[in-house]
């Protein structure tokens, strides 16, 4: 009888060990993790060559981790533990007041300054060669705007200072940090994603208009509709804190444009077409932000039905996908190009396609680490 407690302990431990092992063997492999937005490691192919040279065993270890049963829930358990320990961040995401905000604690200044230089050169050449004006907007990320929600001593880079530096370097730069800071108590960034909301984009759009000496557009000019109210984005994938979220995604459609009914969207030169900039098919999957402009396509051409002879070239990353809805009422055509997927001359494009306006729009964090900005100067 003396060893009864020992037997109980052994029973519990072995049940746990073998139970989890069997559940794992029985759980079918998943190819793709929506939560992490990436392909999961699958069972590596065994061969002697693979074993001795090809890293079979380390691939196998990764496979076991990636395919572990209830993977997403385990990550949630870890995040909860981290928060219980009063940690202020996990996996590069702050536990901010009511939201999960991506950290921006490191910047490769070299790369940033080079990228500023590329945009500067691009802007000069466009003016010189085609007499077309270029505007540039770099959007600070949430951690540079929602500063009062960050934990104490958050080791953030100074996004304001970076934007000031950009304003001094790039002609036609629109510094929107004040506009966003003025509204930083509003819902201008998602709580569970690294992107900004349509409302955030709206405030910056008016700043962009002011830069062109155009009057402010009232929020009344848009029909606002909820695209989704169950959005869990990228920062939630990194730190699944159950007390935060979900987010809602709103569309801000210019009433005038939808009334005309002439909107036509063409992706990648006829690969597919649509009569809206919102792709509802993404609302059923995890990556709901892609509802704007069908995720990140190489070339998107939008005919707005507006008849004013102005043709915009928008060079951008995913932050601009939210911004495009506001531009619809101002241009006859909008061509959206993502330099990450496009390999022809941007300067020539402006000349050959009757472009009258150029806008470069990135989020500051992405811009400072992007290796493709160089292609603007080609």
């Amino acid at each position, binding site marked *: 009888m003396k060893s009864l407690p020992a037997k109980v*302990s*052994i029973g519990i431990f072995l049940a746990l060990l073998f139970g989890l092992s069997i559940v794992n063997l029985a759980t079918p492999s998943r190819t793709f993790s929506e939560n992490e937005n990436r392909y999961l490691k699958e069972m590596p192919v065994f061969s002697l060559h693979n074993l001795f040279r090809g890293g079979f065993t380390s691939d196998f270890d990764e496979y076991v981790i990636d395919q572990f049963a209830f993977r997403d829930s385990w990550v949630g358990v*870890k995040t909860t533990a981290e928060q219980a*320990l009063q940690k202020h961040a996990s996996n590069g995401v702050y536990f901010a007041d009511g939201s999960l905000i991506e950290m921006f604690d490191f910047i490769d200044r070299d790369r940033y300054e080079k990228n500023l230089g590329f945009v500067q050169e691009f802007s000069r050449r466009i003016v010189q060669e085609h007499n077309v004006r270029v505007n540039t907007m770099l959007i600070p990320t949430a951690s540079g705007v929602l500063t009062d929600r960050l934990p*104490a001593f958050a*080791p953030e880079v100074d996004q304001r200072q970076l934007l000031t530096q950009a304003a001094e370097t790039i002609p036609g730069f629109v510094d929107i940090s004040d506009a966003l800071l003025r509204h930083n108590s509003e819902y201008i960034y998602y709580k569970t994603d690294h992107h900004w909301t349509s409302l955030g984009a709206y405030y910056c759009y008016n700043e962009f208009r002011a830069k062109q000496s155009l009057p402010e557009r009232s929020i009344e000019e848009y029909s606002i509709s909820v695209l989704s109210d169950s959005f869990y984005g990228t920062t939630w994938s990194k730190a699944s804190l159950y007390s935060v979220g979900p987010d809602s995604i709103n569309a801000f459609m210019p009433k005038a444009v939808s009334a005309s009914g002439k909107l036509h969207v063409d992706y990648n030169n006829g690969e597919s077409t649509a009569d809206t900039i919102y792709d509802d098919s993404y609302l059923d999957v995890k990556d709901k932000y892609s509802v704007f402009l069908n995720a990140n396509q190489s070339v998107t051409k939008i005919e707005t039905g507006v008849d004013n002879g102005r043709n915009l070239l928008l060079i951008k990353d995913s932050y601009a996908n939210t911004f495009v809805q506001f531009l619809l009422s101002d241009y006859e055509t909008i061509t959206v190009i993502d330099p990450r997927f496009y390999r022809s001359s941007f300067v020539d494009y402006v000349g050959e396609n009757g472009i009258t306006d150029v806008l470069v729009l990135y989020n500051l964090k992405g811009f400072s680490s992007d290796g493709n900005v160089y292609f603007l100067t080609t």
Partner: protein
Amino acid sequence: MVFSSLTFLFLFFPLVLLVYFLAPRKLRNLILFVFSLMFYAWGEPIYVVLMLFSTVLDYTTGYFVDKYRGSNKAKWALLCSVVVNLSLLCVFKYSDFIIANVNALAGTSIPQPNLPLPIGISFYTFQTMSYTIDVYRGDAKMQRNIISFGAYVALFPQLIAGPIVRFSTVAEQLDERRENVDQFSLGIRRFVTGLGKKVLLANNIGMVWSHFSQLGASDMSVLGAWLGIIAFAFQIYFDFSGYSDMAIGLGHMFGFTFLENFEYPYISKSITEFWRRWHISLGTWFREYVYIPLGGNRKGLGRQLLNIGVVWLLTGIWHGASWNFVAWGAYYCVLLVLEKLFLLRLLKKAPAIVSHLYTLLCVLFGWVLFAFDSFPQGFQYLRWMFGGQGIPFANNQALFALTSNLIMLGILVLASTPLPARLARLAEDKLASGSAILQTAVGNLVIVGIFFFCVAYLVDSTYNPFLYFRF
């Protein structure tokens, strides 16, 4: 393979338990041997041959030492074991280092072979050597069964990061151990405790160190430098002692009793005491096989100091093929000699807080030497700890890391002392006098809880390096 991986926990471990305990007793050493080879081959498919070679070599030299006991042939066999084992170590661990230094001194340009370090070679060569030496000295009987001997060398619980189990410790257990329920349950506790130390404590605080060790002067502060090296001290202790706990726990499950490897080193009141509590099996090995054979303290103070010097230079270089490890060994040698000469007497008279502080500071400076392969980097870090290069006392980087890890640091400090173990015993006694059911429930809840969180952290792990892979 490492214990703190899901592959080990949910594939290898259940499988080896199942096969081992279903098999008849006389097959169990063979099973341990085969599984240990698989365990080793998981990380090192080719180098498993090297370990087998070392096994066969010492089985043979042990055999001859026993057969020709008392004659010169036994001495030759012993010499053969020592020379070949040390040569293996030299070739696979130190060849780059030696050649680089020869090149630097002689101006030659001999190419470095850049051999990857076979995992655990520093541990198993010391173990196989200990066998031949123990048999030679008559401290242990020769092991006739090569399978049992192979199981000793390759024994997966302690194969990769120790403790260094001397043959005389387990000689009898190899053939006559009796696995039992109480020992198995003890083993579970020990293993899960070790897993928790590694996965929940060492890995977490390790991130603080890896953050601060990479910062440049523009982001560094005095507070950050101290926080960084304190984090490293905790990381290396919980990593290494956690691994030893897991090894000892697994040993228990299979009926072995290994000796303890760590006894709360950070509560020491002198460096002499620290080294009695830190990596005990390595200290014992060098004492038994180097220090005492050289004459120890029996041949006068001068000779003793020389012996201490030899042992500590070897201890230093054992930790890695780089000059900073030699310097680290020499650093401790100087401290230990000073303590032996007069410092220890002073420390005994001093208030406890003073001797604690002295010891911890010495150990922290030691870790700076240990952590940086390059001297300039190490010295720069030391300067930062004292505000050199005009760095501020504190900045956001440091304050954020501090506030974010305050509870963790508290847990680490507590876990470095015998207090949790004492509390657990006290609670157990209290509960035992009340209700056995409650006692069992609470004990198991703690173990299951630690295990549960370990799995969560491992599933989420992008960060799971094993520090002691370098040895």
